[in-house]
Structures are given as structure tokens and as C-alpha cells.
């Protein structure tokens, strides 16, 4: 069973080369059509009802997010395609969505399509896109993030996160109410996603929510007592930064 897809990109070269690469290297994708703008893409999607959309982020007039906004409910997957747009990538990452960079790398494309196949029937798409639009349309720190877990996505209020701790390539996220989530992203990823929020990397294994600090204990080289009574190490190198961050906080 092939995955049905459409390509929406304002540049003809990009559309054609993606189509060619898909045809040559990702044979389990069937391209139902191509569109050169968001509005044309909207029509096309409603017409052919694809399972997957390759969507260029930056397009004249209406961009990718304007297009998504037109749908009340989303019943397709999107792989974003962008040449160089950090701001959008940040939002896409925080919503746990997929993206490809131009020029398209064959291996990246294959793994992205594979991933989409895995989560095709995941039920929380609407929530995920809602989160994406929210974080794209506001310059304020993120309110919510989507955290990929072993069995799906978890939407978490950023204010509910007390701290994140790395565990190899996984990250344990400690929430209020003593809940915890084990995420398949690294602590570095969360450091990146939450860089505009009031979070601070105190240590190679710790990222903490500054709002949830109970107190900073200076003895024994210093450690931080969080609101859930957990103690968090702070590395020597970070102490100065931490204190000045606290001062402005």
C-alpha cells in the first residue's frame, strides 16, 4: 500500500527535484499532485485527500502555516520543507513534527517518510498542529510543547515542567504532581526547544525551570533545591551564569 502524497512549493525546481527523488528513491510514495501556492495546495488537498503533504514553509502571499490554519481538522501528515528558517524549525521541533532541509538529502527523506508511516494513525494531530500554529504566531516563550514518548505524544504545559534530566539519549522530564515522562529526545534538544523560556542548563545532565527553584544552597559547591524537593547539581562553570540569570529573573 503506497502512501499518497502531494507537494506544495512555490519553486518549480524544488517541486520537480523532490518529485524525482521520491520517484527514484522512495518508491512507496505515490504523488497525487503538485501545487505552487498555499491556496492551490488547499484546493488540491481537498480534492485528492492525500495522506502526506510535503509543504514548503516559505511561500509568497500565504505560507505553510496559513495553509494549515485553513483546516479545522487535519487528517493528513505533513513533512515541512525549508531552505533555511530557524524560527519555523524551532516551532516545528517543539510540536514534534518532521521537516526536511533543502537540498533534499535522500537518506533524510527516506527516514522522514518511514517515520510518517509509523505514526499515520496517531490520534493527536489536531492538537499538534494547534500547538505549532500557536508557537509560530507568537514571539512569546512557548506555553506548551509536544513530547514524544514511547507510545505517542504527550502535550505538556511548559509551566508544569520542574526540570529535565538526561539519561543517555533519553530525557526524563519531571512534572508537577510527581509525574514524569521519558522522552526519546536528548536533553540538548530540550535545551534548544526551551531556549526562549525561563529554563537554564545547570549541568550536563540537568535543565531546570527557573520558576520552580525553591532555593539555591551555596554550601558543598552549590546545588539547587527545586519545588519538588529534588536537588539539582550545578557545574562550576555554570554557576556565574546561573547567578546572573537569577538576578535578572
Amino acid at each position, binding site marked *: 500500500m503506497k502512501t499518497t502524497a502531494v507537494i506544495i512549493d512555490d519553486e518549480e525546481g524544488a517541486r520537480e527535484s523532490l518529485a524525482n527523488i521520491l520517484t527514484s528513491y522512495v518508491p512507496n510514495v505515490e504523488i497525487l499532485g503538485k501545487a505552487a501556492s498555499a491556496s492551490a495546495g488547499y484546493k488540491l488537498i481537498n480534492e485528492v485527500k492525500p495522506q502526506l503533504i510535503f509543504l514548503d514553509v516559505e511561500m509568497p502571499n500565504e505560507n505553510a502555516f496559513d495553509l494549515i490554519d485553513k483546516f479545522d481538522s487535519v487528517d493528513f501528515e505533513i513533512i515541512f520543507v525549508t531552505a533555511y528558517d530557524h524560527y519555523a524549525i524551532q516551532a516545528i521541533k517543539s510540536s514534534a513534527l518532521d521537516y526536511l532541509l533543502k537540498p533534499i538529502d535522500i537518506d533524510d527523506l527516506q527516514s522522514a517518510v518511514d517515520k510518517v508511516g509509523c505514526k499515520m494513525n496517531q490520534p493527536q494531530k489536531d492538537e499538534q498542529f494547534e500547538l505549532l500554529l500557536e508557537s509560530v504566531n507568537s514571539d512569546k516563550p512557548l506555553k506548551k510543547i509536544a513530547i514524544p514518548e514511547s507510545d505517542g505524544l504527550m502535550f505538556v504545559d511548559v509551566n508544569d515542567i520542574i526540570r529535565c534530566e538526561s539519561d543517555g539519549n533519553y530525557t526524563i522530564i519531571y512534572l508537577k504532581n510527581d509525574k514524569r515522562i521519558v522522552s526519546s529526545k536528548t536533553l540538548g534538544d530540550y535545551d534548544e526547544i526551551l531556549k526562549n523560556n525561563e529554563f537554564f542548563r545547570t549541568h*550536563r545532565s540537568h535543565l531546570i525551570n527557573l520558576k520552580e527553584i525553591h532555593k539555591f544552597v551555596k554550601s558543598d559547591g552549590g546545588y539547587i533545591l527545586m519545588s519538588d524537593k529534588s536537588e539539582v547539581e550545578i557545574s562550576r562553570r555554570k554557576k556565574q551564569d546561573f547567578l546572573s540569570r537569577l538576578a535578572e529573573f
Partner: protein
Amino acid sequence: MKVRILITLTSFIWCISFAQQPLFEQLTIENGLGSNNVYDIDITRNGEVWLTTDNHLCAFRGLGFSTYEVNDSSLTGLFLDAKGMIWVYSSNGNIYDFDGIRLKKVSTEATDILQSSLTNQIVFESKNTFWASTIIKGQLIKIENLNPTKIELPGESGYFVKELKNGDYITGTGINPETSNQLHVLFQDETVQIPLTQKGVGTKSSFLVLNDGTFLFSKDFELIHFDKNHVLNRVFVEKNITSLFQDSKEQIWIGLYNGGVICYPDETISSKNMITYLGANSITSIIEDYSNNIWVGTLNNGVFYLPEQQIVKYSAPQLFSDTSSKIEQTLGIKTLGSSNTASVSDLRIISTRSTIYDSIPPTIYINNLRIMNRDTIIQLNYVLPYNLNFLNINYIGFSYKNPENIQYKYRMIGIDKNWTYTNNNSVQYTTLPPGEYEFLVSSMNKNGIWSESNAKLKFEITPPYWKTWWFIFTMLASFFLISGAILFLWIRNIKEKQHAKSEIDKKIASAELQALRAQMNPHFMFNTVSSIQHYITTNETESALRYLSKFSKLMRRILDNSKTATITIKNEVQTLDLYLSLESLRFKNKLMYVIDIDKSIDQNYDEIPAMLVQPYVENAILHGINHKEGVGTINVSITRENEFIKCIISDDGVGRKRSVEINKSKNKKHKSAGMSITRERLNILNEAQKNETNIVINDLVDKSGNPAGTKIEIYILTEN
């Protein structure tokens, strides 16, 4: 009969309330008194005790008080006339008579005069005659059957006027400051002037005729006992005197303001012969009832009652006969018991005769000075260190006529603002602060004649050395000097540091820019693009695509990494991997590479400056592997060594020497910009953190000693 009832009742109260022999019983508002401010007390012949409180007339009939309210809150005095009528007067000039049920305001020409002209008066009465005195010009007003007559007194009468008896008057002057501290006693046949210690108008004064016919006069703290010819005695007490009274046992009672009651048990008025009662109460009036019980009115604390048997000295009871001993308010007048009042024309003024005085001034000596409780020899001047500042001064005055009646005043100039009056002949000064002082003491005989000169002592208490001006100045100066110097050095140090830091920052920034340029090495870029071109022309689409995507990923990374000062080792390694894989595409089958990261490195966390290692790798390829025949291998390993991250880039190429030779032979001028930039950056970074070895270059040799490549070690300082 009624007297007996009162005695029984009061004794009853006494027995209930006070089992443990206290002296006084207190009756207050809780016993039904109108207010705790009692201004006057009088006793009727049937034993009722009448009192005025603020706006009540109160009667004590044994069990409790009956109160009669009047709309006048300044009732000050009451008087029982010969018919038993009760008259009440208030300080604002109103007179009330009491008909047994209520107080009625008396409104006549007399009260009009009192209300308009007497600013601070007391009205007294003898039968149906009132006497009132004003404080203005000492006017005396006689009010007979409620008809006023103004009586002009001769001479300069002062701020209080009283009729004594049969046309004898006592006045004090208050107009002329020169003579305002004189007491004038105007007898019918002569005038006596008695000097007063304190000047002043409007202060409290009281007057009493004692049972033996002598007079007692008080003003402020001064008590003068005199008769028609002599000043018999003069005493200073601790507080201002408010009232005087002599009871039927000849005991003299002195009421004080804030000082309770002094009782002189016999007629000798002296500090050795006295008993004090009632602590610090403010006394308004003292009176004795027909059962010889003493009643004392106070401000704030109601009335105190001293049962007869408690009085210290017992003598045969006498009938209480002299109403003149009733106590009055300030600036009052009163009449004596006699109803005969003399007309003014009977008064004659006779000039004062010095013969009635002890006119010889007493002498005064300082007879002992003790410093820190040790006797010293009397000198005129003392210079004492700060810790010998506890002084006891004894002085003595000699009066030939009345050696027992000497009073003193003393003053320590430098600490006392005013003279202190006392009958004590010693004074103590404790912990005098450093400074200059002069002690003056003078004595006065009973007639108020002060010694002609004061006895003096001069003291200088020197400050401790740490309080002297030169010490404080030196300390302050050195303090400011030292702290100024510290501040100056500190600021200079900070400035230097800031300067140095900004220099380093500048250098780092420019080195980073150069590093970026070096990585965007045109040689490498265009060679890569040309390789892609090659794949396109030979229709190797997939290779072209892979090559292209790697190239774009590398460019993206270089751009991204140029934005931050440091990147994670993972990032650096991935960038290096992209670079090496591009180069290995170029040098088909000629370049192999291994990147090895030690476990001691946390790739996701440990950071190093971006693009630091790449130039050495590039150099190894261009000069080591490029010239080698066959496959060359580049080894990149990253390990931790203490606080340093150590990068080893080794190749198995031709070695440095050979490379230089080859380049020479090819007449190639190669300038390794990238490496020198890295060296410079490391110097800046590590120097800022005090390190010496940054880059170590080893030429490798094989077993037979031939060059076998180059090994470069880069040390980057980080914190663990």
C-alpha cells in the same frame, strides 16, 4: 450622735478593706466618687464629708458617696458657712449654692465681677462674706451679702492677696520684676518683707496660720515659717507645695504636687523630723474631720482617708476649731476664723526693719571633695582624667544666729542649667563627661540672705586619648587615605581587567571571523562544486545528489556554528565528518578517516570553540595524504586530559619535511592560513585561562626511521 455613726461606719470600711495596717484608705470613683480629681474637701458639723470633683459635689455619709452634678466641669472649691450652707465655686468665676438637692448658680453683680475680672481666683467666705483676689494688680474683692466691694491695697500689691485677721493682709508682688520675689505681709502696724528664693508670677502659693499664731507660707518648693517679727525657719522640699494644714495634734501636713504628703509630727519643721506618705500623688487639699481622721484629696486618685489611730504621734484630741486651716487652691485668699474684717483705712505701712532679720550673710565653704570615693585635698582647680569622674562634694554654711537653718543652692556650670536648692550639704556627680566645669555653692540663712560669694571648684575632665581631636583626626585621615588608596587600586585593577577582557574579546571575535573565512576555503568550495559538476556530466545522479546534500549540510553547519562561540563536541565531530566525507569523495579511494571520541567526553555537553580542528585536518589531507602514494588514513581522536580536551589529528602521510620539499619542487607557495588562525585562537583562549602548551606537533617515523606522517595534539581548556 451622727459623729459616732460616721466613726462606726468609717471604722467598718477600714476593717473590711484593710486588715494589714495600711496607713491610708483610698476612696475613688469605684466607691461612688464623682471623679478621681478631688479639688476640695470640707466637713460639716454633723460629720458629713463634702468634696468637689470636676463637675460633681459629692457627700460622704459613711457608706458611700452621694453625687450632685452641675454643668460646670471646673468646680474647684467649696465652703460651709456658719449656717451650714454649702457654697461651691468654680475656677471660671461661678458661685453655686446647694439647697440639699441641687446646685444653683448664684447670679449677682458679684458673680459678674468675678466672671469678668478674676482670671484665676478663689473665693472664700466668712459667714455671708466672700473674699476674692485677682491676679491682676492684686485686687481684693469683698463680697458681703453678695454685694461686691473692691478693696485697694496700698503699695504695689502683687499676684496674691489674702486677708489674715482683723485687717492684716499678706500679699505677694508680681508686677515689678525687681521685687516680684518678695513676700509682703501687711500687718496693721507694720509691713514685713520676706525675700523669696524663686521669682515668678502665677505659681502655687499657700498660707496657713498655725495654732501658736505663727505663719506658714509656701511658694513653689520653698516653705517659710515666720511670725510678726522673724523668719523662724526656711525649708526647701523636693516638689512644689500645693497645700498646708495643721491638725488638732499640732502636726503640720504639707501637700505636694507629684510628691505625696509630708507630715512634721511636731511643730519643728526640719528634714530630720518628717514622715512622707502617699508616694507621688498630686495633693490638692488636706483636712481633718471631727473624729480626727485626716482626709487628703488628690488629682487622679480620689481621696485618701487616714484613720485617727494610724497617725504617728498621738496627743489628746482637740476640737477642730479653726476653719482657717482649710486648704485653698492656688492664688487664693482666705479669711481666718474671725468675722471681724478691718477696713482698708486701718492699714498702715511701716518700712521694713533689718533688725527683725538675721541680716548677716552666711559664709560658705567646701569642706570635702571625694574623687572616686577617695578623699582629696581641696584645691581650686582639678584636671582629672576621663576615668576619675565620680565626684562627691561636701560643703557647709555658717550662720552665727541660726546655724541650724541654713539652706543651700549649688550649680555645676557645664552640666546644670539652673541652681538646685536643697538643705542637704553634699552633692554627688557621677560619670561627668569630658569637659570643663565650675562648681558653685551658696548658702542662705533663714531670712533669705545669701552668702556674699559662692564657694567654687573648677574641674577639667580630660577626654581619653581616643576621643582627643588629634587622635580622631589622625585616625580619620589615615582611614580615608587607606580606603582611598584601596579604592583607587581596586578601580584601576577593574579597569585594567575590563580593558584586557575587551582586548581579548576583540581578538577572539576577529579570529573567529578569520576561522570562518578559512573554512569557507575557496579552494575547497570550488573543488567540491567542480566534483559535483563532474558527477552531473557523467550522469551519476545519485552521487551528485549525495555530494550536493553533504556539501549543503556542511555549509549550513559552518554558517550555524559561526553564530556561537562554542559548539558541542558532537556538533564539531559531525561537521568534521561531513568535511572528511566530502574530501574522501574527492580523493576517491585515497582517503580513509577514523573519528574516535573517548568515553570521557560527553559529546552532547562538552563544548569547544567552533571550527578549531578542521584546519589541521585539512592540512593533513593536503600535505600528508595528498602527496602519498596509495591510501592514506587520518585519525581524529578526542579525549579528556584533566581540564583540557585533547584533540589528536594524525596522518600516515609523507611527513612535514617531505611535504615542504615537494611543495618547493612544485614551486608552490602554500600559506596555511587556517592553522595559524587556530594557533592564534588557542593562544588567546588558553592564555586568557593561563595555559602554556596549546599545540604539539610530532613528526612520526616508522620502524626504520623514515618519516611516517604527522601527529598534532591540540589542547583546549575547558572545565570538567
